[in-house]
């Protein structure tokens, strides 16, 4: 017996209903769009990047509870992080949602998404926004599609 509540934990539901930083960032100097071709969902990430530090971040778009929650919690976790820190952070997060290996000290609230690794089709949902941030950081404005 598996219990769906292991995937849809309360924190995920809360964030998906009331996502944080769900707005267009007025003074963004970076942005990128991400597509999930599997479902047709899209996300736009807005970044204010200064001296390699993410000063502010927001998002817009459509998505499932998993993707909304992942994006919302991500935005709250990235503020103040450097580009390099983001990369490590993403690596650890990516490992968690694909293998279940959680480093909750580093990931904090994001650890709530560890259940995703049991649902391979949903990995894209959890990582879409992350890939999009990565793209915004690397490339300014470009359209990306996750390839997972």
């Amino acid at each position, binding site marked *: 017996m598996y219990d*769906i509540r292991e995937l849809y934990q309360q924190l995920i*539901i809360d964030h*998906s209903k009331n996502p944080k930083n769900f707005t267009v960032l007025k003074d963004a100097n970076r942005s990128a769009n991400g597509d999930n071709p*599997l479902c047709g969902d899209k996300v736009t990430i807005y970044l204010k990047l200064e001296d390699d530090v993410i000063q502010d971040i927001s998002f817009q778009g459509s998505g499932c*509870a998993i993707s909304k929650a992942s994006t919302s919690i991500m935005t709250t976790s990235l503020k103040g992080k450097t580009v390099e820190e983001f990369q490590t952070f993403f690596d650890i997060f990516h490992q968690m949602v694909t293998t279940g290996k959680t480093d909750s000290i580093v990931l904090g609230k994001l650890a709530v998404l560890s259940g995703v690794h049991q649902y391979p089709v*949903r990995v894209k*949902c959890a990582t879409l926004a992350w890939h999009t941030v990565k793209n915004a950081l690397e490339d300014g404005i470009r359209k990306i599609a996750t390839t997972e």
Partner: protein
Amino acid sequence: MLKTVKNSVKNDSNFIDVEKVRRDFPLLQNHYNGRPIAFLDNAATTQKPQVVLDKLNEFYTQYNANVHRAIYHIGEQATREYEDARKKVSDFINAPDPSTIIFTRGATEAINLVAYSWGRHNLSPGDEILITEMEHHSNIIPWQLAVKDTGATLRYIPLHLPVDGTLDLQSLEVNLTNRTKLVAIVHQSNVFGTINPVKKIIKAAQSVGALVLLDSAQSVPHSKVDVQALDCDFLVFSGHKMMGPSGVGVLYAKETLLNSMEPFMGGGEMISTVSMEYSTWNDIPWKFEAGTPNIAQAIGLGAAVDYLNELNMESIHAHENELMDYASDMLKNTPRVILYGNGSKRGAIISFNVEGIHPHDLAQILDQDGIAVRAGHHCAQPIMKRLNVPATTRASFYVYNTKDEIDRLCEGIEKAINLLC
């Protein structure tokens, strides 16, 4: 909790003893998470009765051999069974002759075959292909590629607005001109279930001299389709959607067309003579079946056709109509459910959304209770655009589904609402 009317299964239909039918399907005997599997994704693919699996096994253990050129007895038997399957399929859609039945990998390859063998050799700038906004990607992309190669133009019959799952047939007249060379249209929509008035459309197309291709992937498995009564030029469908194995589908085309068309792929069996400079082609249908065919799969499809005939296509259709009526009523009475499509003639496919719940989350939650539905764009992105949604949830039924499974679906939706909203 919904109030549900639990009919005794025997009464599900006048003809179909659904519990008896279900016993023929090994996969339906499985449980998941403690619940029996309710397979409600039959528009994507269907489960296989034991007789089809037995037939595959018979082929592989008794007469597995390459077809058409073997002198030895298992090769002869394989050939006979393969050509018998063609005959069964031919009779099933009332084709005038088995030679008009080409085995392909699926409906998709069948459409591409036409787009290459007919399209690339008959289309030029100024010519038009007319499809609809209701098509599956399999009946869009091959034409997008064909018009790119030939300079012809692709036009669309729009959906009726506001979207009710039917076509805007008034625009058919505007779009159908003597420039129209082909009308390629879905027989039954895989999103709305709408059964299009194809007979009328074929008549209209014929009056301007256009050919008609019917994408019958969703109609042939569920009702009696008669290619001669329809008088369509091409018709395609997939074996896996009608209880047959994966990896086999069918192109029917009028004999004169097949005879005049260029081959699609080159290789063994499709030739008559080969010299280094040029080759001549085999007769139809073999001209279009290059290389070793999907032998076991075609033979398995023949067994599926036998099984469907035994159940009787009219009885299947009646059972599904009853399920559809029940499902529509039940879903209408489920909170937050938005139903798409309400054409008067519909097959057993129902698309919906639940306010505040993403279709993928809904499908995930239903899966916990062993209910398999589809969430997504259903390979019909133009429809999603018109509906202005990224995706829908879709339940689609077959003869082995029950009202009880529909009850479980509605209960599952309520559960998802309680969890996520």
